[in-house]
């Protein structure tokens, strides 16, 4: 009985469950009623209907779901990012490319503002105003700016904005088609840097550079040095062929070069006579290369002015010939000096005398080499030969004369004569005691033929007597020096001291054009 009563009276837990279930069903019912009410009052714009092939979506306004899906799929396939916003700047559409570009998902982006997807930075402060003006006036704007993603990555983009309007023509939002041009910009920037760098090389090069179209053989660009080299202004070079600007002598020669270039890709001409605009010639080296530039061939011609190099080479050749000539001469002189010294001198002092004379020759030789065989200053020659008595110069030995440069031949002979005179003065003459003096002077004398005059006058030395025999030293200060300059010498053994004088035609002894105004 009791059991039966217990079965009929529900416990409190069952009652609570029933209440909850009742509440849930009420809520579902309320929701169903709300849904029906919403459909009746036109608050929904799509219905999902079950069909044999699955759920089908019917929209209640405008395009049906199929058309919308087709349109959505098309936009999803577009590689540019497409974003639509409403008048409150909230995103109403975002395609797959935009999701990828900005690193967002559609469900996160929809309804959010653009600022939550990216920050905008204008490239120029005026762009923002012009974009607003264009959208207001024409309903569209196209331009470049920077979009900064939420992860701070900056994107260079090209945006195309269009104002969206309803049937009544009122603006309902904007559609943005955004193309990521970051890579392109990066390449453009690299290209710009490269262009500036190589343009600078081209502009500043100290070689002439011509860019030529091989199809027409005409010049399409030339650097500033090329205009300097040829004397033509830049505008006169453009469109010309090489033979027209004096680089090749005629059209045939020019065509020959192009044929060789097309065959081997590079040609080199060591020495071409370039004719400048004024007709003067200039030696140039030409290196031409054929290469590809954006799928078409171009020729780059580098033209180097080799005038200086040619002058240098000619100078070296001249020096080599001069050295060869001098070496032979010197050997002949040494041979003669050795022979004469041996024949006329004391056998006991032969080696000493020979060595001294060769040293005298070497002093002159050093000065010649120092001056690259362009002669020797008289004063330098005198000081060189009197180097052992350098401390006497200015006291017991006086030098006076203008700055004159002796020819190489004259310097060699006069140098040897000065050496002999100095040796004699030390042994027997004015420099053999403590009081004697030597005056060495040179000058140019105006006459019908200008004359070089040089003298060595000793005084205050031991009494001089005329030597009983004339040795090789006498030959050197006499006949040898006379022969070298076709001059005349006077040698007097005055009681007061030795006097030596050389006069010779100025052109035979002195280098033409040498300065003659500075006194020693």
């Amino acid at each position, binding site marked *: 009985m009791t059991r039966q009563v217990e079965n009929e009276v529900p416990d409190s837990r069952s009652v609570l469950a029933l209440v909850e279930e009742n*509440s*849930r069903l009420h*809520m579902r019912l309320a*929701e169903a009623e*709300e*849904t029906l009410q*919403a*459909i009746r009052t036109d*608050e*929904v*714009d*799509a*219905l*999902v209907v*079950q069909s044999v092939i*699955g*759920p*089908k*979506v019917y*929209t209640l*306004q*405008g*395009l049906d*779901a199929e058309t*919308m*899906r087709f*349109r*959505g799929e098309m936009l999803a396939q577009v590689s540019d990012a497409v974003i*639509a916003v*409403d008048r*409150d700047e*909230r995103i*109403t*559409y975002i395609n797959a490319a935009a999701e990828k570009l900005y690193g967002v998902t*559609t*469900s*996160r982006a*929809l*309804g*959010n503002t653009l600022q939550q997807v990216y920050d905008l930075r204008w490239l120029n402060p005026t762009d923002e105003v012009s974009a607003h003006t264009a959208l207001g006036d024409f309903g569209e704007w196209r331009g470049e700016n920077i979009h900064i993603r939420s992860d701070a990555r900056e994107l260079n983009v090209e945006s195309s904005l269009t104002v969206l309007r309803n049937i009544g023509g009122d603006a309902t939002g904007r559609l943005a088609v955004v193309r990521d041009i970051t890579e392109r910009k990066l390449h453009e920037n690299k290209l710009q840097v490269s262009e500036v760098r190589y343009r600078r090389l081209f502009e500043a090069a100290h070689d002439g550079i011509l860019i030529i179209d091989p199809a027409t053989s005409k010049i399409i660009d030339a650097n500033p040095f090329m205009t300097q080299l040829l004397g033509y202004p830049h505008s006169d070079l453009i469109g010309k062929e090489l033979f027209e600007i004096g680089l090749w002598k005629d059209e045939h020669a020019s065509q020959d070069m192009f044929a060789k270039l097309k065959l081997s890709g590079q040609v080199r001409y060591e020495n071409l006579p370039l004719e400048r605009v004024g007709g003067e010639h200039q030696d140039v080296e030409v290196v031409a290369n054929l290469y590809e530039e954006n799928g078409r061939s171009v020729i780059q011609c580098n033209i180097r002015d080799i005038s200086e190099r040619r002058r240098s080479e000619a100078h070296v050749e001249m020096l080599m010939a001069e050295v060869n000539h001098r070496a032979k001469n010197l050997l002949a002189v040494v041979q003669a000096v050795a022979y004469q010294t041996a024949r006329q001198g004391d056998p006991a002092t032969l080696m000493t005398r020979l060595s001294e004379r060769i040293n005298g020759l070497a002093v002159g030789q050093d000065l010649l080499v120092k001056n690259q065989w362009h002669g020797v200053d008289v004063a330098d020659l005198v000081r060189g030969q009197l180097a052992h008595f350098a401390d006497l110069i200015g006291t017991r030995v006086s030098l006076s004369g203008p700055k004159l440069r002796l020819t190489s031949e004259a310097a060699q002979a006069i140098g040897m004569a000065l050496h002999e005179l100095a040796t004699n003065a030390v042994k027997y003459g004015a420099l053999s005691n403590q009081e004697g003096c030597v005056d060495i002077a040179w000058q140019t004398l105006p006459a019908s033929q200008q004359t070089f005059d040089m003298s060595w006058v000793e005084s205050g030395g031991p009494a001089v007597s005329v030597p009983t025999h004339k040795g090789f030293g006498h030959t050197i200060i006499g006949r040898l020096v006379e022969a070298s300059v076709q001059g005349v010498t006077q040698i007097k053994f005055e009681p007061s001291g030795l006097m030596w004088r050389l006069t010779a035609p100025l052109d035979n002894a002195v280098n033409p054009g040498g300065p003659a105004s500075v006194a020693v």
Partner: protein
Amino acid sequence: MTKTPVEAAAPVNDTAHYSLHLYVTGGTVRSIRAIANIRKICEVYLKGRYDLDVVDISQDPMRAQSEQIIAAPTLIKTLPLPLRRFIGDMSQTDRILVGLNLYPGGAALLPRGEL
């Protein structure tokens, strides 16, 4: 005495994390409006503690079937329990707030400018 809805009478839920799913149909006017309205509500009342998943059923009809969606726009609150559904463009803010248990019973309505 005005009868207060059960949920509205309950204490305001100000710590729970909300999981919301909004089912829309492409770029129709109501769908766009519904997205904008629910975002505003979430940003004002649930900032930092909600997930909103926007689903375009024209692109994914099977999703509509699995969630038993019969019309769009529809918002479903899956968390916190109990599950609730709202139909329309989400412009009836008061009703949505009550349904989401975010509206303090008896308190004055928030000024419209807030949204």
